[in-house]
């Protein structure tokens, strides 16, 4: 086989199970491509030589009953990996070697997968373009100097560029779905409580969820089936009946009611996004779904509420980085001075900004006006969805208000960067599952995604809708390997 790296996960698993290719051949192919693709800056840490050893060991004693037999894959550098450096894209963790493994990655290794390395991301997952990483910005394989989106930008870039057959990201306000949309890939943010947060570097604990990023919906369902487990190490992990998502996947969505929320539009939204959405509605109808107009009246308040809730939780979560127990430390004249210099030099600009916002909205005198207010608005947003789901089974929207932009284009204006997440953030505030699938391209040929939002714990349903629509859309990513010399 000449082109192992362009196979879908499902095909790769089949080829290995059928003994057409070995884990070693597969792993070598991805390592080789990874080495030729360093200009993308998708990796923070390559773990290639260990990966090869593990692949050889797998081939010597293969277990083909596993779901990911000898499959190499790279993961976002926000997941703690036992013995392998985990940085969260930050200087403050640039030498941190976790003595334990995140539950989500452990679930993946338990099924036979092999770690290729750790992928670049925005610092502490705070960003929408992967430009806040201490390890530099990531290029999208779609075009030179184009952002892959963020915060799971390294994951999206590596996946679209065929450096990994599948990957995982985390999504606090859109960090899986927006980069998936920008790179023509599939990304699922599961229901809050579906995937364990144990061992994931925390950003905003009431919003963070890990999820799969893949080349197609079937692969996505397979990985979700593996990573979604109840975990007593995460007190917010929920013990519900999980489907065998890939086995139960069906393109029969006849009679499903899909809601179209009229509020999902912004001033100056390019017409191509409107057109994409209209096309998406037609695809859904072609699949036999019934389209229902709905209203989510508080949509426009989601982003402002998010920029209170998320920084507030972040300021609390990031208090632990004090230069004492792990990570970077700066010299100080005394203990307080050491803390202040460590955090000033160790955190990047965006992270400091968000810690300061969070500290401010939680500070005495402002707590009620901002933090409690935002939590009340969060309730209203959740109520909107609850009301809508009395009438529909799922909701269809664009994933983002625009296609990908160039590196440096939005870095000077935080608010314009935040607007990237306007269609993804409400989902996190309400704790719902949502999937982004590639559905078209803009005038420049840059991918655009559609988002399908589900009821809580109804991942199977949105995967099915995505699967059915994917068949109609027939999206093909055009990637020219321009970065390979």
């Amino acid at each position: 086989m000449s082109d192992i790296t362009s196979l879908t996960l499902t095909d790769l698993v089949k080829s290995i199970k059928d003994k057409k290719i070995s884990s070693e051949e597969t792993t070598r192919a991805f390592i080789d491509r990874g080495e030729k693709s360093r200009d993308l800056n998708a990796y923070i840490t390559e773990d290639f030589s260990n990966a090869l050893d593990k692949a050889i060991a797998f081939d010597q004693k293969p277990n083909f009953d596993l779901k990911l037999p000898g499959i190499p894959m790279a993961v976002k550098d926000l997941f703690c990996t036992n013995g392998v450096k985990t940085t969260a894209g930050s200087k403050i963790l640039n030498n941190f070697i976790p003595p334990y493994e995140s539950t989500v990655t452990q679930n993946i290794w338990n099924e036979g997968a092999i770690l290729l390395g750790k992928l670049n991301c925005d610092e502490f997952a705070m960003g929408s373009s992967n430009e806040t990483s201490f390890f530099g910005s990531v290029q999208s394989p779609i075009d030179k100097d184009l952002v892959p989106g963020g915060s799971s930008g390294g994951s999206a870039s590596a996946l679209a560029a065929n450096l990994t057959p599948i990957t995982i990201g985390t999504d606090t306000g859109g960090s899986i779905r927006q980069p998936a949309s920008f790179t023509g890939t599939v990304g699922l943010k599961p229901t809050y409580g579906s995937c364990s947060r144990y061992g994931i570097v925390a950003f905003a604990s009431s919003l963070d969820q890990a999820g799969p990023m893949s080349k197609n919906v079937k692969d996505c369902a397979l990985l979700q089936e593996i990573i979604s487990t109840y975990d007593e190490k995460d007190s917010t992990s929920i013990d519900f009946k999980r489907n065998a998502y890939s086995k139960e996947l069906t393109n029969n969505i006849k009679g499903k009611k899909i809601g179209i929320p009229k509020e999902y539009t912004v001033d100056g939204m390019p017409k191509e996004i409107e057109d994409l959405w209209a096309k998406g509605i037609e695809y859904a109808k072609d699949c036999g779904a019934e389209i229902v107009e709905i209203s989510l009246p508080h949509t426009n308040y989601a982003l402002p509420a998010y920029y209170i809730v998320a920084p507030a939780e972040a300021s609390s979560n990031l208090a632990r980085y004090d230069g004492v127990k792990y990570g970077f430390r700066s010299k100080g004249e005394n203990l307080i001075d050491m803390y202040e210099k460590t955090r000033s030099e160790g955190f990047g600009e965006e992270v400091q900004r968000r810690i300061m916002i969070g500290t401010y909205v939680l500070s005495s005198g402002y707590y009620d006006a901002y933090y409690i207010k935002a939590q009340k608005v969060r309730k209203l947003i959740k109520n909107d969805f609850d009301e809508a789901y009395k009438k529909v089974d799922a909701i269809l929207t664009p994933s983002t208000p625009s296609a990908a932009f160039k590196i440096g284009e939005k870095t000077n204006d935080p608010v314009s960067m935040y607007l990237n997440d306007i269609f993804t953030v409400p989902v996190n505030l309400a704790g719902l599952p949502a999937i982004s699938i590639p559905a078209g391209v803009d005038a420049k040929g840059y991918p655009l995604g559609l988002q399908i939002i589900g009821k809580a714990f109804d991942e199977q349903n949105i995967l099915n809708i995505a699967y059915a629509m994917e068949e109609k859309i027939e999206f093909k990513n055009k990637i020219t390997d321009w970065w390979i010399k």
Partner: protein
Amino acid sequence: MTIDLKTIKHISKLSRISVDDEKAKKLAGDMNSIFNFIEKLKELDTNNVEPLTSVAETTLKLRIDEVKSDNIKEQVLKNSPDENEDFFVVPRVVE
């Protein structure tokens, strides 16, 4: 509402992030534009709305309180910027 430099210095103290005058000016500008955007929430009457603290509508599970992790003292200490035998070391705090 405007966030002035004095407020920025106050928040920087609370956040334990040192901020010089130049950085404070930049932060004040950014934070004012962000809070301008956040002020939109004031349009909403939320007097009779309960704040949502968690979307996971479950009660916490109880479990037996027992030690399950291995003794990984060495690995934990290895990540410390400065250690001495079994301790984390910090700048002197008592005279």
